[in-house]
């Protein structure tokens, strides 16, 4: 009797832990997206409105590369894939594809004013999503890609918990690595040029820097980071479809995260991701306790709050909660 009750309590506990683990791992994915966007906008001043598009390319590339073959069955059209490549190869492919796409979009627009880049990237993301929705032989259309393997395969009653723990662990390791790596390269002379481009592009050109090349590099690297986030997303969710997970709202959420945390600040971007995704996660948890008339409109109210946050923060606190460290010439 006692052991059974204990087992039940334990089961509930791991349930909560799995849920929390899901929150942490999705937050980590958003943090990687925010780091990519922060590199582009916060450090270099390149405003990307198509984060969701690069995220989608990474997720689909990874899913196609690493998924074992799924035979088409009734109601499932099947998709390109069955290559069963190692996970690391999937990550590299995802980063390469997203980075390449980012470079291609940036090539004609990065030399123009910031608003052209924003429009072109937003348009790009929508076109990519339309293609993912309709190119059924490759992406399985609206149904999406299913059967993406876990990072490690577990069995037994604790499998869910162990899988969540692996997702969190791998995600945290990647995030820590990215944080250190970005910190290092942004303190290097290369990173200094980026901030110079953001502050005054013409002056940077005048001292002999090819700003076009720097901007292109940064946009491609940022895109590659978003592709990496897509890879992690595919491995965490095990299932990707184009309409919900890669909607423009993802892009706007990442903006809020970076603005809340403070543009030009790595720690801020990560903190912003955890806070803003925490809001979304809480709103999902609230669904069970909310009164009936509110139940269906909770996601919409959340997005309205995101919108209001964007407006209020950009007007009253554009430097975010954690400001960029002031740098003084020595």
């Amino acid at each position: 009797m006692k052991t059974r009750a204990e087992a039940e309590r334990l089961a509930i506990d791991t349930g909560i832990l799995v849920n929390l683990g899901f929150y942490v791992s999705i937050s980590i994915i958003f943090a990687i997206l925010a780091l990519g966007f922060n590199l582009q906008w916060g450090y270099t001043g390149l405003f990307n409105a198509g984060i969701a598009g690069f995220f989608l390319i990474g997720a689909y590339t990874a899913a196609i590369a690493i998924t074992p073959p799924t035979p088409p069955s009734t109601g499932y059209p099947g998709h390109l894939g069955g290559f069963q490549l190692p996970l690391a190869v999937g990550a590299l492919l995802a980063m390469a594809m997203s980075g390449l796409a980012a470079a291609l979009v940036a090539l004609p627009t990065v030399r123009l004013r910031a608003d052209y880049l924003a429009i072109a990237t937003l348009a790009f993301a929508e076109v990519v999503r339309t293609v993912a929705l309709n190119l059924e032989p490759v992406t399985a259309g609206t149904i999406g890609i299913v059967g993406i393997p876990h990072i490690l395969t577990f069995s037994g009653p604790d499998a869910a918990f162990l899988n969540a723990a692996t997702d969190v662990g791998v995600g945290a390791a990647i995030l820590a690595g990215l944080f250190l790596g970005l910190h290092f390269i942004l303190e290097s002379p290369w990173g200094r040029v980026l901030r110079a481009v953001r502050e005054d592009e013409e002056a940077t050109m005048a001292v002999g820097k090819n700003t076009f090349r720097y901007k292109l590099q940064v946009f491609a690297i940022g895109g590659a980071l978003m592709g990496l986030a897509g890879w992690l997303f595919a491995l965490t969710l095990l299932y990707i479809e184009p309409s919900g997970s890669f909607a423009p709202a993802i892009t706007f959420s990442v903006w809020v995260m970076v603005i809340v945390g403070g543009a030009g600040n790595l720690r801020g971007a990560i903190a912003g991701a955890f806070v803003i995704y925490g809001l979304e996660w809480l709103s999902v948890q609230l669904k069970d306790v909310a009164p009936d008339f509110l139940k269906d409109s909770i996601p919409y109210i959340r997005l309205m709050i995101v919108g209001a946050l964007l407006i209020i923060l950009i007007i009253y606190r554009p430097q975010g909660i954690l400001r960029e460290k002031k740098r003084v010439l020595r």
Partner: protein
Amino acid sequence: MAIPSESDSSTGTRVPHRLWELLHFTPRARRKLVRGALVTIIFLAFNGVLAVLFGVTILNYTIAGLSVSSIVIVAAIGLTLVYGMRGFANFAYGDIMSLGAYVALLVNINGLSLIWGAILSFAVLALVGILLELIVFSRLEGRGAVPPIVASVGVGLIIQNGIRTIATTTPWIYRVEAIQEIPIVPGLGVHPIRHILTPAVGLLFVLVTHILLTYTNLGKAMRATADNFELAKATGIDTKRVTYATWAVSCAFASTAGILLGLYGLLKPTMGFEVLLLIFAAVIVGGIGSPWGAVLGGLVIGLSQEMSAPVFAWLAGPDVIGLVNASAYKVAIPFIVMIAVLILRPWGIAGRAPAFTGRVFFIEKIAKALGRRPKPTGPLEDESGG
């Protein structure tokens, strides 16, 4: 003796001269008119060839393209006015269109006709535009292009999700009598609302814009402010009032474009956001800030999108490449046209190149990378020859 004859001659030449002036036929305008006529003739001839080659039904796509263009033109004029004046892309514009459509719906389902809905929505949205500038965008003046873009996305999210909360996500439809298509020849027909009313409204708005911007003081002040804010201020134009007026006009145009869009299909919370890309493409193709360019860009974008549909339908054939859901890909066409314009003429097809612009910077760069040097130009040879 000399005086009356002089006055005679002046009255004799003056009236046509003034008429000439009224029509604004400067040499440049005349050149443009000739070019426009030429393009129109080529386009008509192209359609004639299509009709001969593929049968008359192919012209349905042209008709659809013209009515989509009309909606895009009305919206693009409104968007480009604010874009030119405030220097930022209003990402909320699509959602403002949806708001206009839903305001008209609210009037419409309460028993009034849609015409009243359109008029009321026009006024309400003008007010919304003024409020947006007052509450949000005037605080972001002089902060560059990105902060207002971020704020406009916030506005768009609030409007779109507000509509979702209040009007639910189920699609609505306007209460208008169902009207049958009028057949011209078998297989080719025009729908009175979609294919006659919509282009007529589009044309009306183009004319109204032209009159507003060319003949009224407000319009001239708007153009001056968009061209050079500081100079306009120094000349004594109340730039603040002009900015509010521009916002009012812009959002009012959005409401009409939204209603036309609602008449074309269904009313959904995302209806405006879905065509935002189309409108941006039209604005960029025409050159940012130029209403006449927006008209041209709207025509290019609308026609190219709709007339690409038969090409995709052909690609869907099992013996070609068997593309699934081929018709969905036509939304990529505006994007491709926009990128092409951004590569070749970032100032738009109607705009004038800014001074000191390299001819085609991007292509020259590629040529240089491939090792080709630009050839020495004509004048040098002439000098050596002489």
